[in-house]
Structure formats: structure tokens, C-alpha cells
């Protein structure tokens, strides 16, 4: 059923984009370029977006709750939220990685110092035995 304020072709277009997105993420996971844990939010949010697009009554409900006159605008607003949420999640993941990288760098530094100390001990022992 085509709503004049949410044209059918917009619905179809949005659905196609979201399905393509889902297929792409699944492909990335299967070829192991995207880890499952990091992709969970993408899968969840894309699935939710797909549900909203395929069942426009939900969209109309959201639009009326937010006092948006045109449901198609609600679709774009939600698309924006979709991008924000995934972006924020990615930023959080980056912060976690930064902390781990710092820890690893420190560990390397300390290990290097230990190695140097061991090398010195071996060297001095070598000199004495000569």
C-alpha cells in the first residue's frame, strides 16, 4: 500500500539499499575482513531499519510521536540516527584499541630493556671466561 507521504518507490529504494548493506556486511564477515563482534551492531541496526522500512506503519507511528508531518522525513531522520549510532560504536571500539596499543607498546619497551640487561649479563660473562 502506497502512502502519498511515503512513496512506494522510496520504500523500495530504501529496502534495496538496506538489503545490499546487509549482504555486504555478511560477505565481509564470511571473508573474515569484519569480525562478528564488531559487526553485531551493524547487523542489528540494519535489521531494525529494514523492519521499519518494510512495515511503514511503524514509521508512521514514529513520525506521529515525533510530530513529523511527512513519514518519509522520519525515514531520513532514522537513517541519520542509524549512522550516528554505528559511528559512535566504532569510536568506542577505537578507544578500546588505543588503550590496548598503549599497553602493548609499554610491554615492548619493558621487554626490550630486559633483553638489553640479559645481553649485558651474557657479554660480561663471556669476557670473564676468556
Amino acid at each position: 500500500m502506497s502512502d502519498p507521504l511515503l512513496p512506494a518507490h522510496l520504500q523500495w529504494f530504501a529496502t534495496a539499499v538496506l538489503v545490499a548493506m546487509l549482504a555486504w556486511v555478511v560477505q565481509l564477515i564470511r571473508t573474515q575482513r569484519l569480525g562478528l563482534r564488531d559487526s553485531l551492531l551493524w547487523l542489528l541496526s540494519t535489521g531494525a531499519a529494514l523492519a521499519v522500512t518494510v512495515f511503514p506503519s511503524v514509521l508512521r507511528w514514529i513520525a506521529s510521536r515525533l510530530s513529523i508531518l511527512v513519514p518519509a522525513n522520519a525515514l531520513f531522520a532514522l537513517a541519520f540516527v542509524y549512522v550516528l549510532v554505528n559511528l559512535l560504536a566504532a569510536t568506542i571500539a577505537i578507544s578500546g584499541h588505543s588503550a590496548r596499543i598503549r599497553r602493548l607498546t609499554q610491554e615492548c619497551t619493558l621487554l626490550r630493556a630486559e633483553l638489553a640487561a640479559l645481553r649485558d649479563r651474557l657479554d660480561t660473562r663471556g669476557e670473564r671466561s676468556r
Partner: protein
Amino acid sequence: MRVLLIIPAFNEAANLPEVLRGIAEHAPGCDVCVVDDASTDGTSSVALASGVEVLRGCVNLGIGGAVQTGYLWARHHGYDVAVQIDGDGQHDPRYLAAVIAPVLRGDADLVIGSRFAAPADASGFRSTALRRAGIRYLARFLRLRCGARVTDPTSGFRAAGRRAIELFATTYPSDYPEPESIAVAVRSGLRVSEVPVVMRPRQQGRSSIGALSTLYYLVKVSLALLLLPRRMSPPLSRTGGGAAS
């Protein structure tokens, strides 16, 4: 045949001494390697005091990363068999011989110690009813997905032969890796079998998998099993030659 026992441990300072004592008693010929996943309770010092090899990580990687570290060590030092044993005391070292046997005979590349394999012994610790239902679901899913017949896919008590060591050192799942690693093994052409074991409840401390986490676990593992890579090449041929690149 050189056997390595991989004991992943995160804050198991309270349980480790007993675990290591049991291993020393029932499996004295095996080398032990405790993988300390950046614990904060002195797990490493406890392990070192017992004189076993300790691999101390500086960043917490979770069970997947920790166990894989053990497999990397096993591969690097040319072990023939690597056995995973939990550091919380749930796995009884008396069953080590049973779990290792099929690998030593050359009948299997990966052997799972199952709480539910026949002849079933219900006297042991078999987790809560909810978890058992989850495990049955996973066992069925796993069989549908890759044909693996495993009654206890979540068991971390398992023995790996050289081919499995090579595979897991290269690829090992990160979150809730037990069921997924079985699927990866089967699809890489490895032979997976089971032996019955009896487990004990965790001695001290809390499991890292709580009540609600069980549902998340099932959803996540199901997704992971659905989205496995399309084709996987065997890590080593049956005769032990290197993988073709």
C-alpha cells in the same frame, strides 16, 4: 609423544594450586602451560610458584585469545598433542588419558571431553537446566551446519593433535570459541570425536558467563556458525606435510 596442557586462566589464583596439584598427580608426564590472560589477582605468581610454564599476557584477550596463545606455544615447541584444561577446577585431570587416547592412536585430530556422551554419567556436574537446553540446541545446530556429531560443544576440555594445533594457532574464534572452533575444525577436514568425562562444579569464584549472557551466547554462536567462511583448506595433510600456500 610430547603432550602440552594448556590452562587458560583469568583471576584463578584461588583455584590454580588445586588444579596444578591434580595434574601433577594424574598426568606427571605432561608439560603444563598456564596462560594468564592479564589477571589482576596474582594468578601468574601462583602458577610460577608451582614451577610450570607461565605465559603472561599484558592485555586481556578473552578465552579465545588466551587459548590460541597456548596453541601458538604448542606449535612453536613442536608438541604432538595439546590439551585444553580450565583453570577453575571443573575439568578432572583423571580423564586426561581418556581424552588424549584417540589422538595418540591417530583416530582423531580433535577430541572433546563431553559430559553428555554415552555412557552418560549424570553424577557429575552438568550445568543448569537452561544451559543444558542451550547445549542441546547448539549440538543440533552444529550438526546441521557442518555435520559434527558432538554432544557437548561448549566443553573446553579437549585434546588437539598436530593438525588441530596448526589450525588453531592460525585461526581461533574470539568470543565463545568452543562450538565455533569445532565447526572450523570439521570444515578444515579434521576428524573430531568425543569421549565421556565427568566434570566438577567450579570450586571458587564466579563463572564469567552469567544468566542473561547465556541467551547472548546462543544468539552470538548461532550467528557465528551461520556466517562461517565458505571454504577452508586443511592446515596439514594427514601425513603431516605443510599446507600448500
